């Protein structure tokens, strides 16, 4: 009952953000008449997290199997993986890529090649994927197909003749694209008879069915009842269910080399599963694991605390489960005087941090606060000791510090020439040094900068978007550490330092950052019965100050008759609101205040 892998194609869609990946995935699914049985198809079918639908972005890679009968009469199984486009989530892209033989590189006909188009193409080429260039949104009046074809040839070095023109919106060209996928992307090469080797590329937790592992089988086969071995963690489990993704999980009982699907194996210990690990059979184990992925390195660190200290254990369970589905999240125990017990976490970027916050709140119904994010600094002590510090609370006494180094990135920015001046100004303000500038054509420039990662974390991306009216695109990689002049800025609310708001800041930025944080907190902290001073301080000296005035009157005039039940219900609502605030000393700090201090300053942009 072995199936012919010549009729399988594993491919992903890669592109710069908003070039239409999720929309194209919708068309595929519709064409394959998968969407129809569920009534009118929702848009962005694969973006099934609430946050994805609301923000219109893809955060997680998702997989789906599409049955397709090609012009040659063959009944194919196309395994499609949708991927995110934001720079924070390129890790997800690389995981998707590892489970495919081919990639559709989508280019918005009106935007052309952008920074992530390039970055994702490089990723695909590293993994030897067959890349099919696809120009999307050809229905737009502003579509400039000749210029895109030129860029595909000139900037990407791909064959313009193999390019497919589509409109993911209208469906035009999608049939042809199916045929090209079948024709150009090679079938998986695995050996069904070899010992099983399956790469775990994702997993998630289902409250009813437990841990569900997403994998790509490279060799051999895995069926229900098999005893499997996780080669890295050495754990063994018995497979209870095997199947493929067709929006819902569809049980097939067996999968074999070349297939993409899931298994459930009654896994109780979440730490048994590591995305990137290889699964094989106990009875006939593979000699060695698959190459797996590079371990992700978090670049932003921040601590998560429950708003209600009693929720610590639930927070721990939530983070463990989230980690299953988000392999890039790293965490360890942390504690703060102001906030109690929590977790120090590493993230791929600020958007990643926000997504984790939203997922913890929505999927686990917990209220949490985040502390100011930080990069990892290397602190050289006078006594020769070298410390890695990403937590302001652990920053040593400055008298004992010899010097500090901070991480630098190389930023690639692609922008229409009109905005070059403004972008240079922004990059200089962010301590950037230009190392290159290439004109891609008359209208578009690629600018290369080296700058501190910490500067990119704070408001860089939003401001770049805003000064270029959304046209500039940006990608970066960490290139190493350089000497810097660092201080710890503390925030005092009503005279008491709030350790969770302390930040490590470049000395030259202290004034501006201090002012911004104080202003933000002033906006976010509700007035109380007394005046609340907010100060930013370095060492003993105050660098900035704001005051929240006391409120004088909040009593509502009339209170009689049936009114009282209504008032009580109002009181209960207010109570809920207060419970989402963190008491620090005698001041309530709303959860969003902790995030607001990180957001870009609208007044500057």
């Amino acid at each position, binding site marked *: 009952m072995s199936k012919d892998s010549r009729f399988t194609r594993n491919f992903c869609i890669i592109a710069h953000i908003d070039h239409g990946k999720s929309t194209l995935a919708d068309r595929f699914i519709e064409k394959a008449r998968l969407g129809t049985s569920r009534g009118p198809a929702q848009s962005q079918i694969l973006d099934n997290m609430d946050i994805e639908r609301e923000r219109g972005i893809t955060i997680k890679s998702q997989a789906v199997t599409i049955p397709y009968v090609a012009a040659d009469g063959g009944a194919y199984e196309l395994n499609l993986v949708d991927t995110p486009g934001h720079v924070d989530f390129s890790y997800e892209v690389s995981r998707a890529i590892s489970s495919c033989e081919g990639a559709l590189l989508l280019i918005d006909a009106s935007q052309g090649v952008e920074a992530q188009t390039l970055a994702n193409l490089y990723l695909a080429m590293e993994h030897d994927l067959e890349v099919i260039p696809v120009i999307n949104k050809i229905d737009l009046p502003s579509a400039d197909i000749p210029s895109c074809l030129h860029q595909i040839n000139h900037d990407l070095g791909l064959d313009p003749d193999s390019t497919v023109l589509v409109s993911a919106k209208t469906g035009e060209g999608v049939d042809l694209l199916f045929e090209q996928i079948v024709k150009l992307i090679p079938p998986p090469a695995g050996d069904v008879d070899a010992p099983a080797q399956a790469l775990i590329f994702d997993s998630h937790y289902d409250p009813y069915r437990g841990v569900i592992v997403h994998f790509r089988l490279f060799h051999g086969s895995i069926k229900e009842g098999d005893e499997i071995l996780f080669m890295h963690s050495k754990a063994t489990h018995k497979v209870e269910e095997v199947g493929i993704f067709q929006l819902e999980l569809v049980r097939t009982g067996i999968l074999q080399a070349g297939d993409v699907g899931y298994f459930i194996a009654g896994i109780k210990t979440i730490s048994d599963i590591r995305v990137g690990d290889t699964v094989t059979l106990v009875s006939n184990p593979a000699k060695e694991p698959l190459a797996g992925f590079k371990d992700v390195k978090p670049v932003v660190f921040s601590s998560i605390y429950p708003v209600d200290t009693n929720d610590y254990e639930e927070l721990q369970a939530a983070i463990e489960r989230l980690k299953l589905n988000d392999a890039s999240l790293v*965490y360890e125990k942390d504690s703060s005087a102001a906030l109690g017990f929590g977790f120090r976490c590493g993230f791929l970027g600020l958007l990643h941090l926000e997504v984790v916050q939203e997922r913890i709140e929505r999927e686990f119904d917990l209220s949490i606060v985040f502390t100011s994010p930080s990069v990892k600094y290397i602190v050289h002590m006078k006594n020769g000791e070298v410390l890695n510090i990403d937590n302001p609370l652990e920053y040593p006494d400055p008298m004992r510090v010899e010097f500090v180094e901070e991480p630098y990135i190389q930023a690639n920015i692609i922008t229409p020439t009109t905005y070059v001046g403004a972008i240079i100004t922004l990059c200089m303000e962010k301590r950037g040094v230009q190392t290159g500038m290439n004109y891609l054509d008359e209208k578009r420039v690629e600018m290369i900068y080296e700058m501190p990662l910490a500067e990119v974390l704070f408001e860089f991306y939003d401001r770049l978007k805003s000064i270029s009216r959304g046209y500039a695109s940006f990608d970066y990689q960490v290139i190493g550490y350089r000497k810097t002049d660092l201080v710890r800025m503390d925030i005092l609310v009503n005279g008491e330092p709030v350790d969770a708001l302390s930040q490590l800041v470049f000395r030259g930025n202290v004034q501006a950052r201090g002012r911004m944080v104080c202003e933000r907190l002033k906006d976010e902290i509700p007035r109380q019965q007394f005046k609340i001073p907010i100060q930013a301080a370095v060492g003993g000296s105050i660098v900035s100050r704001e005051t929240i005035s006391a409120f004088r009157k909040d*009593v509502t005039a009339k209170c*009689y008759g049936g009114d009282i039940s209504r008032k009580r219900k109002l*009181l209960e609502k207010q109570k809920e609101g207060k419970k989402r605030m963190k008491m620090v000393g005698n001041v*309530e700090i709303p959860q969003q205040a902790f995030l607001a201090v990180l957001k870009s300053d609208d007044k500057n942009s």
Partner: protein
Amino acid sequence: MKIASSVPSGLFHSGFPVSLYIHVPFCVSKCDYCAFYSLPACRWDGGGSSLRTAYVERMAREIESCALALGRPFETVFFGGGNPGCLRSNELSRLLEAACLFGRPGECTVEMNPESLDMSFLPVLGRYADRLSMGVQSLDAQVLSALGRNTSLSRVVGGIGNAVELRRRYGVKLSFDLMTCVPGQDEASALNDIDSLVATAEPEHLSLYCLSVEEGTPLAMRAHELEEWDQTRMLLACWQRLSLLGYEHYEVSNFAQKGNRCLHNSRYWALEQYVGLGPAAAGTAFCEEGIVRWGCPADVVAYCAGRPFSGYRHEFLSKEEELEEYLLVALRVKEGINFDAFATRFGFSFGELLDSECLRTLTDGSYVVGTTSFACTENGWMVLDDLVLRLALAADRVRHSKNGDCPVEPPVAP
């Protein structure tokens, strides 16, 4: 016997004192700031057999049944609205008579708008009521029109005159409602209202409200509430003036000459038992487990079409909910919360609410903790909503720790 049995069981617990509130849901026209339930005359005054007649018919029966079920005078009686002055004097007389079936209550108040109080009401009021509460709102023509009261200053003054005559003839005590913080009103105008009212009528009692512009009212379409600081200043000035004139500030919005507090409302502020009858009325009844909130839907037409006691809904309050309501009402009164009364009612000491977290969030001058009670100062009344919220949060904490789910040392993360 038969009539008495039609009182829904639990409408009140006759083992405890019972007060009676009657809601008269009729007005001449709707004021622009009004968010209370009442219909303007054009909706109820339709010829011979009007809604009003049907209302009186059903209401008289409901009152009688309650009086019979109780078998003794009500503790206090209050006819509010709306505007009970929209009833004919014989209709009002009939309802009052029913309310006094077993004798006069300890206090009987009738609300009436100044323009409605014509001389025909005087004998009826004189016979049954001992308090008249009149919604004057302002003696400044501009403020009256800002409020969208469809009346004229001269009619208001006329009504006050009739009220004074009512007191002269029958000894009925007077209370007037005044409105402050009306958009366009300044401090001088608000003070002048107080001065002239006291000069002309020397009321035993005054209610001084601060206008809240309620969503959905016509006023909300054209005006905003005054700035918080302006409201505070105006209120403080009025409070001070009333105190100079010899009125005791005994509740957030209420002032009385010595011995003239409103007993009915005082019982309400102590979350005591009372029956509320009529559309949009609510009542509080005691039962074994705690208290029941009785209410009648805000729908005159349905009320008039239904049998006596049909349509009333009730809701049991948990002890926690009762505590929250208690905090909401009890702290409005000068004497605040009595520790003994609190402990008897809720089974724990009020002092437990004053944990460090709660006290940290209150300003020093906003409350007074005595040996027998906890009470708000005038400054505390200004921020009462916050104060109550703090205490309610503290009550949750007390409950948490009583239920034994106290915070434990968290486990070590991997």
